[in-house]
Structure formats: structure tokens, C-alpha cells
């Protein structure tokens, strides 16, 4: 249904689509306005005045920095683990057909298909049964598990486009398995892996539901935000953090889009 030569979109459809998109975007734009408000105690609209002072205040808040650092560390390590596991899985699944292939792709998708709270409480109860104390690594364990699918989705789409005969061609021309990996496979799936990694990073950076169950006393940035949402203490600081989070997550999404736009789409359903 890509072409429609004779017809133009009905006005009603245009209005409904535009309204739908506005509904998706306006609330995010409002965050940007609130980051500059002079009001401290309430969420009053319109803002009584504008200031950039809250950026400086936020900058000097050690708790925000600690949460941000933890989030970045967790996201970075989870992304690396997800990249390794997701790529291995995608390579194995797309290269050959074997018994149990469907089961394995289901296994990869399951952590994202079931509600996050189930993943979270399952991990928590497993940690408590195995008497594993909460730590940085318990957070990473959870995050890496649901990040695998994002890398996997991106890599599998690209592996499908990288024809099997290209690998044979490389071997035929005298390249052994390692040379083929370095000179043919890696350059061809590289951008898909970078895109998958970025999405995995964004996913981990933003994750809160599983994290509340696996974090113990440590605060990632989303957990910090959640605290502020439940018990607002520093509204202006929260406003600024919210805006920064929006910008920080937009960048990898845009980058991932540009890396994969010809051909496969970023796996939006993978979140």
C-alpha cells in the first residue's frame, strides 16, 4: 500500500493523524519548558518566569551525579554483554537451521514479551533463594538479560541481508574463518551492531521496573527519578534531570536510525 496515485488523504484522516502525533510529542515538549521555570514549589502553568539557574543547581548535586554514573556504568557493561550474547545468538540462528531454533529465538524474546515486573520479581526471588546479595552486578545481570533481544533483533535482520554466498566467496578467495570474520562479516554487520548497542544502552539507561527489584540500596538515575516522582523534594532539579534524560536518550535513537535506515528498521517492538 505504498502508492496511491489518484487519491489524496482525506482531511479527517490528516487531522486525526496530526492530533495523534501531537498527543505523543506535546508532553515531552512541556518537560523542556518546565526545566526553565522559576517556580519551585508547584507545577504551575504558565511558568511565572524563566531561568537557567536550575541547571547550575543540578550540576552541583552529588546525588544526581552518583545516580548518573551508576546508570552509565550499568548500561555500558550490560550493553557489552548483550552485544556478545545477542550477536552469537543471531549468527547461530541465521546461519543454519537446526532443531530447537524456534525455541531459542523465543527464549531471547521472552524477557521482553513478559511484563517487566515478572522479570524483576523472578530475578529477586532467585537472588534471595540463592542468597546472592544485591550489588552493582545484580543490576547488570537483569539489564543484560533484557538487552540481548535488542542487539539480537538488529543483528538478525542484518545477517539475513548478508548473503551466505558472501562468506563462501571470502573463503573461496583464500580467507580462513578469522580473516572472513574480520574482513567481511564484521564490516557488514558493524553498523547493525552499533545500532543495536545504542538501543540496548538507551533501554538499560532508562530501565526502572526490573531495577527496583535488583538494585538493593543503589540508585540508578531512573530510580532517583522514581523517588522524586513519588515524594517530590526538589522539583526544579527533577525538571532539569528529566530534560537531560530526554536528550540523552534521543541521541542514540537518532544515531541508531541513521545507521540502519537503508533496509532494516530499528526494532521498535523490541523495547
Amino acid at each position: 500500500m505504498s502508492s496511491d496515485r489518484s487519491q489524496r488523504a482525506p482531511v479527517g484522516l490528516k487531522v486525526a493523524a496530526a492530533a495523534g502525533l501531537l498527543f505523543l510529542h506535546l508532553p515531552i515538549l512541556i518537560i523542556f519548558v518546565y526545566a526553565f521555570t522559576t517556580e519551585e514549589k508547584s507545577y504551575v502553568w504558565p511558568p511565572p518566569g524563566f531561568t537557567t539557574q536550575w541547571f547550575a543547581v543540578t550540576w552541583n548535586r552529588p546525588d544526581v551525579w552518583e545516580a548518573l554514573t551508576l546508570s552509565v556504568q550499568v548500561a555500558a557493561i550490560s550493553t557489552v554483554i548483550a552485544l556478545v550474547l545477542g550477536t552469537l545468538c543471531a549468527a547461530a540462528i541465521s546461519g543454519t537451521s537446526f532443531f530447537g531454533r524456534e525455541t531459542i529465538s523465543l527464549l531471547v524474546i521472552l524477557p521482553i514479551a513478559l511484563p517487566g515486573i515478572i522479570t524483576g520479581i523472578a530475578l529477586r526471588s532467585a537472588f534471595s533463594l540463592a542468597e546472592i546479595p544485591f550489588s552493582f552486578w545484580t543490576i547488570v545481570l537483569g539489564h543484560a538479560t533484557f538487552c540481548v533481544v535488542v542487539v539480537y533483533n538488529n543483528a538478525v535482520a542484518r545477517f539475513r541481508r548478508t548473503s551466505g554466498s558472501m562468506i563462501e566467496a571470502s573463503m573461496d578467495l583464500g580467507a580462513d574463518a578469522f580473516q572472513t570474520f574480520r574482513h567481511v562479516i564484521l564490516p557488514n554487520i558493524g553498523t547493525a551492531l552499533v545500532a543495536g548497542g545504542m538501543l540496548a544502552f538507551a533501554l538499560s539507561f532508562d530501565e526502572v521496573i526490573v531495577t527496583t527489584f535488583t538494585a538493593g540500596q543503589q540508585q540508578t538515575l531512573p530510580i532517583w527519578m522514581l523517588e522524586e516522582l513519588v515524594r517530590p523534594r526538589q522539583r526544579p532539579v527533577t525538571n532539569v534531570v528529566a530534560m537531560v534524560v530526554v536528550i540523552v536518550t534521543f541521541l542514540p535513537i537518532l544515531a541508531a536510525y541513521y545507521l540502519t535506515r537503508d533496509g532494516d528498521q530499528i526494532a521498535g517492538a523490541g523495547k
Partner: protein
Amino acid sequence: MTPAVSFTKVSRHFGAVRAVDAVDLEIAEGEFFAMLGPSGSGKTTCLRLIAGFEQPTSGRIEIFGENAVGVPPYRRNVNTVFQDYALFPHLNVADNVAYGLMVKGVAREERSRAAEEALALVKLPGYGARKPGQLSGGQRQRVALARALVNKPRVLLLDEPLGALDLKLREQMQEELKSLQKQLGITFVFVTHDQGEALSMADRVAVFNDGKIMQIGSPQEIYRRPATRFVADFVGSSNILPPDFMQRYAGQRRWGSLRPEHIRILAQTSGDGVPARVAALSYLGAGTRVSLDAEGLRLHAVVDSGGALPAPGDAVVLTFNRDHVHVMDEPA
């Protein structure tokens, strides 16, 4: 002389499927060898066995007298032109061509000189900086050819090399491939399902069916003296004559074949020969193809378009020279 490629009782089974079944084969050095057959006949699997992408389930494969079983593709001095060309999209044309030299550790200058030379050989000089995506199908194929030839392989394998090209280009490439092979003297083994291509290009043809070789021979032998009904049917448009028919008109109870151009059509209702009825005519240019119904047996004849043509529905009598009837090996 040692054959370039030799198969001894080579089989390749995929589960219950016998893709290649106890094939014996010898390809001579410097030969242009065609493997012809319908899809699924085992010809491509044979090619892949030579390249090393497949391993035989049983049997022995030798390349210039050296055992090739268990040798990975990257250690065989054999190169392949793939059906979909399999050019590397991330490399430009020059780097594609120089790939084989690069992985062997040839210095950059030397390999770019060799790549340029190979590109000139396939009539694409100066195309080195382009990306494969910017080339036409015919140009991609030339790059694939250059990429294989630059390694000076002892055997060049071509998998349906002309399948994706349009007719005009295909004919041109047939001639070029042929002259390239003569010029370089490398053993060419190519796979095709197009009998015209096999007959016009190859020194020898192997006709495959059901994982077995039905017949090996020169194009003339294959065309004039098909060994089995399958070969007669698949190669060209021979009429296949059943044993009963042969008994009556050729005096032998065997399967036979008769080329359409060897049938004469007499515009008479009775007389010496095979009574038949004209079913349809199709104009082919110089000749006209006449479909005939000879008492239930469907026959085809080709007659000169310039002469008098029968009309559909006419009762005619067919005659042919007995010497033109080829008696096949296949038992009745």
C-alpha cells in the same frame, strides 16, 4: 596426464536426499567443462564439492592429483564466480578484486597493480574506485570474474554465471568467456540449466539428473546421440520414439530419438511412412515448427518457412531417413 578434477564414486547425501549419488567424473586440464541439468539434479552440489563448500558423504575427490577431501575452500587453488556474484558491498571494485591477494598478504602496491590488470582483462579498466552497488548486472559479473582470475586459480568454477543477464548480454558474455578461457588456458567448470549455453560454450558436457550423470560427451555427441530419454528430452528438442514405434518403423525394439529437422512432411493422406495429423504451427523465423499427432504420439518437425506449409488439421504422412534415427542405450 593428471586430470584437473577427478571424482571417484562421490556421493553427497543430505539426510535421505541423495543430491549427488556415486558420481565418477574426470575433467581434463585446460578444458571448458559444462555441468548441465535441471534444478535439483546435483550439478551445483558437484561444483560446491570441487570448491570445498560441501564435503562428500563418501568417495574421493582429487584436484590435480591431490586429495581434496577434508581440505577447506581457502586452501584450494580453485576460485568460484557465484551466481549472485557475491561481491562485497562494503569494498570498492579494486578492493573486491584484490581481496584474495590481500588475505594472502600480498603488498598493497602489487595487489592494486594486479587488480587493475585483471579489470582490464574483463574490459573494466578504471572502474576500481566504484562500489559494486553502482555497477550494472553485467559489470558486476565481470568484477566477479576478475576477482576470481586475479588469484591465478588452477580451476575456475562458474555457477550459472549468465543466469541473471538479459539475452543480448548473455550471448555477448558467452563469447567473451569462451575466448577468455582460450586465452588463459585455465580449466573452466561451469554449471548451467540452459542447454543452449552448455552446447555452445563447452568442450565437454555432463548431463545431470537425480544426482547422477546421465551422459558425458562433446556437445555434438550429446546433441546427436543422447544416451537416454532424459538427455534427449532435456538437450534440445528431439522427438523421443517409444520402443513400439521404433519396432514398426526402424526395426529395433529400443528407445530412439529423432531431431525435428530430420522429419519430412508429405502432403498426402496415405503412402509409405507414418500417418499423422497436423496439430499446430509456430513460426520461428527461418523455420516453422509443426506439431504433429501420429496416432497418439506427439512429434515435432521443423520445416523451411519458405516452402509450402501444411495447415492445422491436415492429414499428412511423415518420412525420415533411418540413419537419422538414433538408438539410445536405455533399454526398452
